[in-house]
């Protein structure tokens, strides 16, 4: 009986203000939830009012150091050599704003620039499973484009995505997404987004070699915004597997291509990239040994490529013209990843893209890697990749990537 009474008392005690007790999504490890220097209300040094100097509502901070040592050997005229670089330093913060909104930012510094890669608010107050996202953020395309490069399984993003979308594609815009269940084991998620500009950074700026640039007008009609859409379903496969299928699109209804030396420009260009992706993951009963297989087919349509025509006086760029190629180009990547315990995994990825010009070679890239996690926050990766062109201009790269994650850390649902 006494045990019963004790248990009842404990049960009542359990209804003290509930705590999540899992570590909230936004938590800075190493910091207590209430800083130890937080003045206790009523104590002599406390005004009894939170003010501009109160730090108890500070967001959770984190930073990532991603460094790379690599050696590149080309069979053609491209530059060979070794390099050691701090590839990126990422600094991020995130916090709830009110009961229905949370915000975050990600700033990234490399050897030359500091850029705000993402700064956005997730609003969840629409009810149901809807989320509205506003600000600057990575586009929702396939399984990889939302991911920062240092978080990928491989050293670089797959060739097919780099070629048709860019290393990273972020935009200032709005995105609406939602999910629903279609059975006990299957969920379907969709998103649509409208952005002011979805040209990747790598092609927006003037290319120093060609002096050419792509651009999207700052102000435009609503129908001329850039758009994204994604539909994906994921489902349990047996007790240990998960299968995800998805389709994505990025639409640029209007953009221009300009050649600076001559001032020639091709305007009213349009481009749409479609993607079809599939990922299957399997893990053993311990959850530590796993296989992941995946791939994505990418189709680039519309005005896909531009070249500079040496019109007028040969060799004189001031009278050259911009030639735009409208074509359908396709590419894909496939990968297999095997983790044999919590700390070690190996993988192989193959990617191939179709060349935009007749007579020029297709390109393929193969990357093999081994990843070792010293801990969940400390990673070493060794990789070898080879890029093969049909014309024999091959290159080989050996790389060591060393990455540490410091601070706030969480696991979301991998859509």
């Amino acid at each position, binding site marked *: 009986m006494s045990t019963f009474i004790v248990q009842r008392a404990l049960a009542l005690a359990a209804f003290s203000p509930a705590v999540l007790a899992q570590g909230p999504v936004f938590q800075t490890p190493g910091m207590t939830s209430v800083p130890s220097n937080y003045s206790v209300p009523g104590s002599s040094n406390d005004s009894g009012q939170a003010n501009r100097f109160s730090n108890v509502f500070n967001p959770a901070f984190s930073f990532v150091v991603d460094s790379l040592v690599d050696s590149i050997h080309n069979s053609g005229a491209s530059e060979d050599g070794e390099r050691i670089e701090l590839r990126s330093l990422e600094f991020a913060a995130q916090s709830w704003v009110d009961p229905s909104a949370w915000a975050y930012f990600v700033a990234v510094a490399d050897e030359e620039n500091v850029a705000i890669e993402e700064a956005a608010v997730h609003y969840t107050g629409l009810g149901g499973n809807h989320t509205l996202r506003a600000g600057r953020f990575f586009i929702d395309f396939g399984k990889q484009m939302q991911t920062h490069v240092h978080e990928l399984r491989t050293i670089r993003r797959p060739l097919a995505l780099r070629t048709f979308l860019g290393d990273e594609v972020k935009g200032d815009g709005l995105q609406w997404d939602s999910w629903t269940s279609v059975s006990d084991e299957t*969920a379907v998620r969709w998103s649509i987004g409208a952005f002011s500009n979805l040209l990747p950074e790598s092609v927006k700026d003037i290319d120093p070699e060609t002096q050419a640039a792509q651009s999207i007008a700052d102000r435009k009609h609503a129908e001329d915004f850039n758009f994204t859409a994604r539909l994906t379903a994921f489902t349990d496969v047996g007790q240990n597997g998960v299968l995800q299928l998805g389709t994505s699109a990025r639409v640029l209804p209007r953009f221009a291509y300009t050649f600076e030396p001559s001032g020639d420009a091709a305007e009213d260009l349009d481009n749409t990239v479609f993607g079809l992706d599939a990922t299957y993951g399997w893990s053993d009963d311990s959850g530590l040994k796993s296989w992941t297989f995946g791939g994505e087919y990418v189709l680039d349509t519309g005005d896909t490529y531009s070249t500079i025509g040496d019109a007028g006086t040969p060799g004189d760029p001031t009278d050259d013209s911009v030639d735009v190629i409208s074509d359908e180009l396709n590419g894909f990547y496939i990968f297999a990843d095997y983790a044999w315990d919590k700390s070690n995994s190996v993988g192989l990825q193959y990617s191939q893209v179709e060349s935009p010009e007749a007579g020029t070679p297709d390109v393929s890239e193969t990357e093999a890697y081994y990843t070792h996690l010293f801990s969940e926050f400390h990673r070493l990766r060794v990789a070898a990749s080879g890029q093969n062109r049909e014309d024999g201009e091959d290159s080989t790269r050996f790389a060591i990537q060393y990455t540490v994650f410091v601070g706030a850390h969480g696991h979301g649902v991998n859509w």
Partner: protein
Amino acid sequence: MIHMHNSLAIRIRRAASAISCLALVALTGLAHALPAADPLKVVCTLPDLADITREIGGDRVDVTTIYKGKENTHALMGKPSHLVAMSRADVFVQVGLSLESSVVPGLLENCRNNRIQPGKTGFVNVSEGWSALAVPTVLSRKDGDVHPQGNPHMNLAPSAGQHMASVIHAHLVLVEPGSKLVFDQRYAALVKKLDDASARWALVAKDWKGRKIVVYHKEFDYFADAYGLVIQGSIETKPGIPPTPNHLASLIDTMKREPGAVILTAPWSNNDNVEQVARETGAKIVELPNMCGGTSGAETWIGMMDTIHKRVAEALPTAPAAR
């Protein structure tokens, strides 16, 4: 005239009584004919919590479990079925203490089910009110995968059954007060079973104080603490950090100098490192379930604890090793 009025009133009252009785009988029959309200949809992280919830809830609960039983509790990733189940749940039951932090925060955030969010009666954190061991005074990743709220493996404490049951029972009553009688009766029966089991386990473990064990991961600290078992070391360098050759060499040296320890490991951690330490020290390996479903005989929480006590008792030397 008055007499006639009285007689009429009596007849009316009798008729009313008869109608009332008929109505009552009809309503009672109708009530039996109507199906009972749908059982509460409960999602539990560990099978341990699912077992206790079923024991208390009976047919008033429909329980879904996230873990299957052999996983590393800190490494599970969410699946679509987990998300769907969470989105439909009336009650969500977790251990907490960041035990399930690899999977629960993401599911809670994305399931968008307000009934089971922290602070709601449908959110059940069974570690509330529990005195955790090893609550860190300084939080640093230097100490490995530390849990800010203390050692999270409270489900393996011999006294945890009563605590988990009391918290789950109290929440079920709050969520569905109409079934309080059923929950109370089933809870009382469970407490009786748990008390009997505790007495049984205390008898099995009466001579364990001072015996040495080595663990792979700090999962059995509560179990060891309950009986005074001495944890000689852990095969992991720090919680969540795989062993290094230096660490293993040091541990093996210690175990050779002070022999007599048995190695406790879980299904997920019974690996080459455990075998190496056992081979080089001659220590026995005892694989124990770290949650229900981890091994045969561990389908229920009491069954799991019976299995753990039995296996440890069989492995420990018959007399305390010389110290």
